[in-house]
């Protein structure tokens, strides 16, 4: 293929075939001092000015996010955020999408998503220690969905297991809006000695530009521009060559070579090759250092003969790394790469002219100012417009229609609970995460399936705690609230282990930004994300924006996937969600607010239409998390579980099932049984505590200004929930008078529903 044979209608001018608009071509001419770009230059611009590489639609929004925070040593703009955790150590973390490649070829798409985010971590000098994957698909009963789930899970596992990094958590969500456009978001976490922090810059004119790792081939030509930055039209086989192919063993070698080079102080800068390939790596490192790079095209090791210059410059072949090396250290660098069996070559030199120049056989093929490709890339001011028909949330504290009682709807509360536990979004994920190695490395204290992941840090008493959460169901109605609630849930999941959240990474999955409604969703999402992070005092240290998540079936629900990393000072004090001991008191901290829209119950019962989303009070959420961390630090808490999907009843059922202890509780009601039992309003935690600690626990909650209620106790072989005294607000002894609803299910029944729900939904039962 020559560049003139690039896919899409051949009658279009080249820049349009490469995904650039006429305005963008004008802007390119501006940046070249008025001259026309040649074909190679145009190809380089097309990948670097893609949405994926340039953030041309989202940049002005992202600039509003808080990025400063305690201990931040690297923030947005670097390959990953890095935050100091004491003892001379720091944690590097980032989340990134690989949505469109996974829709085309789920196995390789997901695998290379894992590979790409791992490279972002070890490029910083950190050894990757964990992966979390947040996956979203359409209807689980659909054959195409099943094909995608199977492929993505095999891809994540096949890569992560082989490279030897544990997959310790994430999400698996089914929602009709993802039917034509699944989401594959992967978060990686790494650990580094702070003094080893390595930045992706190309300082020092005269230094060598060294490429090591796999050779450069035709795979992944234009992945960023063709796949990641255009709306999807079904399963288009012509896009398959744009999906990269992963080689996890090469990645393993790349990790060892990169970390050895950093450890021995042999490199001045390091940058992985991902989207945009060599063009991106050279222009970004040069721009960061205010230098230029002269690329010797003929020196780049190729996988196949007769590659066109543009193919070499924009290839997204996986498992490659670019290092900036002082000439006197070249021999040492080469020795390290060759010892690990990786091809290595000097492919250029750092210059002082500020340009990315490409030469071959003595001729200059391209010359572009480095900033024009990166920091000075075009920025679009997109139009945002809210949809005309929006449903307002009910005012806080307003009860629903009292007739909204479960028996009136002909639904038995116990049957509803079992249906929720067995539903595809709430059932046990073990059928999926058992296909991952979650324990390699021998640091996994809490693996997938029971809330946030906990990884001990060898040689210290500390642990890192991580969670990913995204609330698309609320976001579909109110993208601001959806994003803020995603931050609240991810931080809450970290806080209920006792850990202090350190920072936030985000993967913003939205639709076509040229559509004003989609851009409104994005801008509202970023506003919600920013407000929530400011409330928690947490920095956003980086992330990724994935736009054009649309298919002929429509756009996805706005999905801000939030990754949070926290620090636990004493890993031995970690608290989990499972009930611990018979006789422990069960205490609910926080109180429900009305609104069932977006809940699993509403999806089951179909009650959302006349309802609204629950409200989030960020100040209360901040107080709640501060409370639970303090309670855990003081040793008052035996278990802690947040009230999330499926509401209070599911939170209690999970604590009971996972602990192997039943529970008996009485819930004083102020609202409808559906809201009390199954509502998903935020800022609530179920904690259990030994009876002697209960007074201190209640006092502490009140000191934090939180509603708190002792509901009952752990014990027995069944979960019994009684709703009592609807509307009663007097002293607790008066509330026992009226039992309005009773739910009673044996643990074995809960477990059976929960264990088998997912495999059954996916047709894996009996496989």
């Amino acid at each position: 293929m020559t560049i003139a044979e690039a896919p899409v209608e051949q009658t279009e001018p080249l820049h349009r075939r490469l995904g650039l608009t006429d305005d963008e071509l004008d802007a390119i001419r501006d940046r070249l001092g008025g001259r026309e770009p040649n074909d190679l230059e145009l190809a380089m611009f097309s990948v670097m000015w893609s949405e994926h590489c340039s953030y041309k639609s989202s940049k002005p929004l992202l600039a509003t996010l808080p990025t400063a925070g305690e201990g931040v040593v690297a923030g947005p703009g670097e390959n990953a955020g890095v935050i100091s955790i004491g003892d001379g150590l720091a944690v590097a973390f980032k989340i990134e999408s690989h949505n469109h490649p996974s829709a085309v070829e789920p196995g390789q798409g997901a695998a290379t998503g894992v590979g790409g985010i791992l490279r972002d971590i070890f490029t910083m000098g950190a050894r990757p220690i964990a992966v979390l994957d947040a996956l979203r698909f359409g209807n689980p009963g659909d054959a195409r969905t099943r094909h995608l789930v199977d492929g993505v899970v095999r891809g994540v596992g096949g890569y992560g297991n082989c490279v030897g990094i544990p997959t310790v958590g994430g999400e698996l969500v089914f929602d009709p809006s993802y039917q034509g456009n699944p989401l594959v978001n992967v978060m990686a976490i790494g650990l580094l000695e702070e003094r080893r922090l390595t930045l992706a810059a190309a300082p020092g004119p005269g230094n060598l530009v060294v490429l090591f790792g796999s050779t450069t081939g035709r795979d992944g030509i234009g992945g960023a521009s063709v796949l990641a930055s255009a709306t999807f039209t079904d399963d288009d086989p012509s896009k398959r060559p744009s999906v990269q192919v992963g080689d996890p063993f090469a990645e393993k070698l790349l990790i060892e070579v990169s970390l050895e080079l950093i450890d021995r102080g042999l490199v001045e800068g390091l940058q992985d090759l991902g989207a945009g390939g060599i063009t991106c790596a050279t222009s970004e490192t040069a721009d960061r250092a205010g230098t230029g790079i002269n690329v010797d095209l003929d020196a780049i090791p190729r996988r196949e003969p007769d590659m066109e210059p543009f193919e070499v410059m924009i290839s997204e072949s996986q498992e490659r790394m670019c290092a900036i090396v002082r000439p006197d250290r070249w021999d040492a660098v080469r020795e390290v790469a060759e010892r690990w069996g990786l091809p290595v070559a000097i492919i250029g030199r750092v210059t002082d002219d500020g340009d990315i120049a490409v030469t071959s056989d003595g001729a200059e093929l391209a010359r572009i100012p480095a900033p024009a490709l990166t920091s000075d890339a075009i920025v679009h001011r997109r139009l945002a417009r809210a949809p005309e028909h929006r449903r307002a949330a009910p005012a806080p504290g307003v009860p629903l229609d009292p007739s909204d009682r479960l028996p009136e709807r002909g639904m038995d509360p116990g049957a509803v609970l079992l249906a929720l536990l067995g539903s595809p979004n709430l059932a046990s994920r073990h059928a999926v995460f058992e296909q991952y190695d979650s324990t390699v490395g021998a640091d996994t204290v809490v693996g997938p399936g029971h809330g946030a992941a906990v990884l001990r840090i060898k040689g210290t008493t500390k642990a890192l705690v991580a969670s990913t959460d995204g609330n698309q169901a609320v976001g579909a109605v109110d993208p601001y609230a959806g994003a803020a609630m995603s931050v609240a849930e991810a931080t809450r999941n970290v806080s209920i282990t006792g850990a202090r959240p350190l920072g936030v990474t985000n993967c913003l999955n939205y639709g076509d930004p040229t559509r004003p409604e989609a851009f409104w969703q994005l801008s509202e999402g970023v506003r919600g994300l920013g407000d929530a992070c400011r409330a928690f005092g947490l920095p956003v240290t980086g992330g990724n924006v994935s736009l054009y998540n649309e298919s002929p079936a429509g756009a996805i629900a706005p999905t801000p996937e939030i990754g949070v990393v926290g620090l636990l000072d004493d890993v031995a004090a970690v608290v989990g969600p499972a009930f611990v001991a018979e006789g422990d008191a069960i205490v609910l901290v926080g109180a429900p607010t009305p609104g069932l829209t977006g809940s699993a119950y509403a999806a089951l019962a179909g009650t959302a239409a006349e309802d609204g989303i629950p409200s989030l009070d960020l100040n209360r959420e901040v107080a709640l998390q501060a409370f639970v961390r303090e309670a855990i630090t003081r040793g008052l808490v035996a278990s802690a579980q947040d009230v999330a999907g499926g509401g209070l009843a599911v939170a209690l059922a999970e604590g009971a099932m996972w602990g192997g202890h039943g529970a008996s509780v009485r819930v004083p009601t102020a609202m409808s049984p559906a809201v009390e039992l199954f509502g998903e309003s935020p800022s609530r935690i179920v904690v259990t505590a030994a009876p002697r600690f209960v007074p201190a626990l209640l006092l502490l909650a009140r000191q934090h200004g939180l509603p708190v209620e002792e509901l009952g106790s752990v014990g027995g072989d069944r979960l019994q929930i009684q709703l009592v005294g609807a509307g009663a607000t007097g002293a607790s002894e008066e509330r026992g008078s009226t039992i309005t609803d009773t739910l009673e299910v044996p643990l074995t029944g809960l477990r059976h529903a929960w264990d088998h729900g997912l495999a059954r939904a996916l047709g894996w039962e009996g496989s």
Partner: protein
Amino acid sequence: GAEPVALWHEAASLDGVAAVVLPGGFAYGDYLRAGVIARFSPVMRAVASFAAEGGLVLGICNGFQVLAEAGLVPGALLRNRQLRFLGRDISIAAERLDTPFTHALAAAGQPLRMPIAHGEGCYFADDQTLDTLEADRQVLFRYVDAVGGPAAEDDRASNPNGSLRAIAGVVNAAGNVAGLMPHPERAAEAILGSDDGAAIIRSLVESASRSASSGPAVAVAAR
């Protein structure tokens, strides 16, 4: 009590170590079949000589696969019965305590909780070989069910990879080379959920320090 040293895959000698552990991982990516390339790595010649001279060798997970491919232990590891990678906690029990790999365990038949994490862990050999292994007491570990008995071959909960006769680990006829699919080293501290595996590692270290006057125990890097 032992100092671990990593040996390079191209090393020609074992630098005088007291025992060899072939750890888990994916050797050379294991794209073709687990262990089939690694058995040809130069260091394996040295491991084979070491084993032939009576040196203690323990293969864990991928290490077991490499030992089986190299013919240093009997049998083969096929793809898991469900044809999917499986990472979960299971229970195994030792068949005998009179080996260098099990003597520090409290009791034979006692369930030991630890993870498996493999795609090719279904232990296979022909019936005659299996009969011989049992007659010669070469079965070192079996997957056990909830009540502590050997798990049935179709008991997906207890023997999820479908290993024949629930065999999780074997030892060679000479008794100095052993392999098992589960990961005792990932279950050697209470904070990781179980320390049942520690006694297996301790058995090896104690045996090695008894049999060799000098030299550290060693882990061969599975690339």
